[in-house]
C-alpha cells in the first residue's frame, strides 16, 4: 500500500498512473468477491456465476476515478500555492479577513432564519425542516462547550437531551407543569446529570473518557426502555402538551376558560401558526444559547475551558482547579442539551427512547467536529448540512446514507480542521495596543 503516495508535491503523470494502478489493484482484490462472483439459483441448488465483465468495468472505473481525483487535488493545490505566493498578506491579516467573512455569514444566516417562516409561511415541510436544523444547532452549541471548548470527548451527549425531554414530558403529563415552568427545572435536571457523569470521569481523558461517556448515554437510554413504571418503557410518553403563546393555545377550539391564538388576534385558524411559533421559539432559544456561550468564552471560565483543552498539566501549574473547570463544562453543556430536549418533547408531543440512540450522539458530535471544534458559526453550517443532505437525499432512496457518508468524508478531506477552523481570539488587540503605547510614552 506504500505505493499509494500521499505526496506533498504535485505528482508526475507516471506517479499518478502508478498510484491509480495500485488503487485499482486494491479495487480488484476487493471486487473479486464483491462483484466478480455471484450466486444464482441453478434448479433449486445454489451455484456460483462469475461476472468478470462487470468486475473489469468496476476496476476501470476505480482506475479512472482515482486518476481524476489525483489530478483534481493537484490542480487545487497548485492554484492554492499560486495564490499564497501572490498574496503578501500575513497570517494575522488572513485570520482577520476570515473572521470578517464569518461575521458577515453570521448576520446573513440570522436574517435568513428570521425571514424564513415569513417567506415559507404556507410550506409546512420547509418550516419543519428548519426547526429540526435549529434543534441540532442548539445541541451542537451545547456539545461545543464540552468537546470544542473544554476538549472533553463526549459520546453520550444524547443522554442529557433525553433527560431534558423526559423531565418536561413527565412534569407536564403527570403534574401539569407548563412549558415555561418546566424549562428551567428540566435544564437544572440535565445539569445535575452532567455533574453526575462528570465526577467519575474526572481523571479520564481521550479514548477512555469517550468510552465511559458512551456507556453513560446507553445507560440512560436502557433505563428509559426498561423502567416501565417511570418512563412507560419503549411505548414512550404521548400527548405531551405543546407550549402556549403567553397562555394562548394553538388549537382549533379554545380550552375551557382559555383563548386560542387565532381567536385572540382575530386570525383564521391555521395549523401553521403553531409550527411558526415553534420555529421562532427554538430560534430564540438557540440565539440565547449562542449569546450565553459566546459570553462565557470571554469570561475566565471559558478561557479556562480552552486552556484545559490545550494542556491540563499547564492548567494545574497556573493554579486552576481542573475539577471545577471540567464539572462546569459538563454541567453547562448538559443544561443546554436539556433545554433542547424540552423543546424537542414539546414539539413532537411524543417521545420514546427510540429518539435518543447513540446515532443521535454521533450526529451531534459530527456537527461539532465538521463545523470546526469550538467554532459557533461552524456548528450552524454543519448542522444545516447534516440535516439537509439526508433531506435532499430522499430522492435517492437507499443511497441516501451513502451520500451522507460521502459528504462527511469529503468535508474532512477538504477541510481537515472542520468547515470553520479559525479560532477567534478572546482578547482583542486594541486593549493591549493601548497598554504598550502608554508604556512607550512613559
Amino acid at each position, binding site marked *: 500500500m506504500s505505493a499509494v503516495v500521499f505526496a506533498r508535491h504535485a505528482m508526475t503523470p507516471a506517479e499518478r498512473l502508478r498510484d491509480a494502478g495500485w488503487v485499482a489493484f486494491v479495487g480488484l482484490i476487493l471486487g473479486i468477491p464483491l462483484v466478480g462472483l455471484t450466486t444464482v439459483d441453478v434448479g433449486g441448488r445454489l451455484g456460483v456465476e462469475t461476472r468478470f465483465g462487470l468486475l473489469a468495468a468496476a476496476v476501470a472505473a476505480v482506475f479512472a476515478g482515482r486518476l481524476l481525483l489525483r489530478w483534481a487535488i493537484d490542480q487545487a493545490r497548485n492554484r492554492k500555492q499560486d495564490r499564497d505566493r501572490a498574496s503578501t498578506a500575513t497570517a494575522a491579516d488572513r485570520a482577520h479577513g476570515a473572521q470578517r467573512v464569518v461575521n458577515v455569514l453570521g448576520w446573513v444566516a440570522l436574517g435568513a432564519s428570521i425571514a424564513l417562516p415569513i417567506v415559507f409561511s404556507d410550506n409546512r415541510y420547509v418550516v419543519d425542516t428548519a426547526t429540526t436544523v435549529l434543534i441540532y444547532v442548539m445541541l451542537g452549541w451545547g456539545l461545543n462547550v464540552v468537546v470544542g471548548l473544554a476538549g472533553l470527548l463526549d459520546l453520550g451527549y444524547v443522554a442529557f437531551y433525553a433527560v431534558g425531554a423526559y423531565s418536561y414530558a413527565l412534569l407536564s403529563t403527570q403534574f401539569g407543569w407548563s412549558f415555561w415552568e418546566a424549562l428551567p427545572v428540566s435544564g437544572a435536571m440535565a445539569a445535575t446529570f452532567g455533574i453526575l457523569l462528570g465526577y467519575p470521569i474526572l481523571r479520564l481523558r481521550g479514548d477512555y473518557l469517550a468510552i465511559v461517556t458512551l456507556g453513560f448515554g446507553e445507560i440512560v437510554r436502557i433505563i428509559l426502555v426498561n423502567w416501565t413504571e417511570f418512563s412507560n418503557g419503549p411505548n414512550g410518553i404521548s400527548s405531551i402538551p405543546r407550549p402556549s403563546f403567553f397562555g394562548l393555545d394553538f388549537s382549533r377550539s379554545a380550552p375551557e376558560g382559555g383563548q386560542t391564538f387565532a381567536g385572540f388576534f382575530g386570525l383564521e385558524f391555521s395549523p401553521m401558526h403553531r409550527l411558526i411559533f415553534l420555529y421562532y421559539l427554538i430560534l430564540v432559544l438557540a440565539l440565547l444559547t449562542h449569546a450565553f456561550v459566546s459570553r462565557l468564552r470571554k469570561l475566565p471560565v471559558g478561557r479556562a475551558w480552552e*486552556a484545559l483543552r490545550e*494542556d491540563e498539566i499547564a492548567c494545574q501549574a497556573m*493554579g486552576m482547579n481542573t475539577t471545577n473547570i471540567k464539572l462546569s463544562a459538563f454541567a453547562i453543556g448538559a443544561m443546554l442539551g436539556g433545554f433542547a430536549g424540552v423543546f424537542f418533547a414539546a414539539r413532537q408531543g411524543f417521545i420514546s427512547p427510540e429518539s435518543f440512540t447513540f446515532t443521535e450522539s454521533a450526529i451531534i458530535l459530527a456537527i461539532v467536529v465538521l463545523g470546526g471544534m469550538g467554532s459557533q458559526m461552524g456548528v450552524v453550517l454543519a448542522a444545516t448540512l447534516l440535516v439537509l443532505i439526508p433531506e435532499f437525499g430522499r430522492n435517492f432512496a437507499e443511497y441516501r446514507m451513502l451520500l451522507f457518508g460521502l459528504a462527511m468524508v469529503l468535508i474532512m478531506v477538504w477541510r481537515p480542521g472542520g468547515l470553520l477552523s479559525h479560532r477567534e481570539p478572546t482578547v482583542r488587540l486594541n486593549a493591549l495596543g493601548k497598554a504598550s503605547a502608554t508604556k512607550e510614552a512613559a
Partner: protein
Amino acid sequence: MMLKMEGVHAHYGHIHALRGIDVEVQVGEIVTLIGANGAGKSTLMMSLFGNPKASAGRIVFDGEDITRVHTHEIARRGIALVPEGRRIFPRMTVIENLQMGTAHADPANYAADTARVFAMFPILQERQSQRAGTLSGGEQQMLAIGRALMSRPKLLLLDEPSLGLAPIYIRRIFQIVKELNRDHGMTILLVEQNANQALRVAHRGYVLQHGEITLAGTGAELLASPEVRAAYLEGGHA
C-alpha cells in the same frame, strides 16, 4: 527561608521515586537540581506541587506547611511552575497564554504585568496576536516563562528550560534566569540536565541520583567536584 523540603518521599504507583529529599531554597537564591534522566528531578518538582503528594516528609513554603495542600491551591500561594516541555496553550494566542497565567491573580495588575513581560521578552509583544503554537521552541520557552511570571510568584520553578532548544536559545534562557534573579530578585529553583550551564548561574546546587540527594554545595563547588565532573560534565553519564 523560601522553601524547605524535609525527608520527602514520593511514589508513582509502586515506584518509590523520591527517597527522603532534603532541599532548602533561601529568598533571592538560584538553586539548581541536577541529575541524570529518571533520577527524580521532575518528580521532585511535581511533588512540590502536590502531584503526586509526598507520601512522607514535610514541605514548607514561605513559613506554611503545603504538604497536604491541593495542587491548584499551591500555585495560588505564590509558586509558579514552568513545566517540562513548555506546555504552552498552542491554539491560543500569545497574549491569551499570558492571560492564563493570571488565572488567580489580581486583575488590577494585568496591564502592568503584561508590560513587564513584554519589556523582558520584546519578541512576545511582536507576536502577541499570533497563535502560540506557531512560535519557535525558544520563543515558546520565553512565553512559558512569561506566563509563569504573570502571577507575580515568590518562587519560580523551571523544569528543564533548555530542553530541546537551539544553543543560541539555551544561552539566552540561562541569561534570562540570571537577569530574573539579579534584576527582579526572583527566587528560582532550576531543574536541569545541562549541568554545566545550570551550575554556572546557580548559587547553590543539589545532585539527585536514584531519588536521593547525593551531593550538595555552591555552584562553584559542584562544578569543581570530581564526582560531578565525572558524571555530568566530562564524557557524559558515568
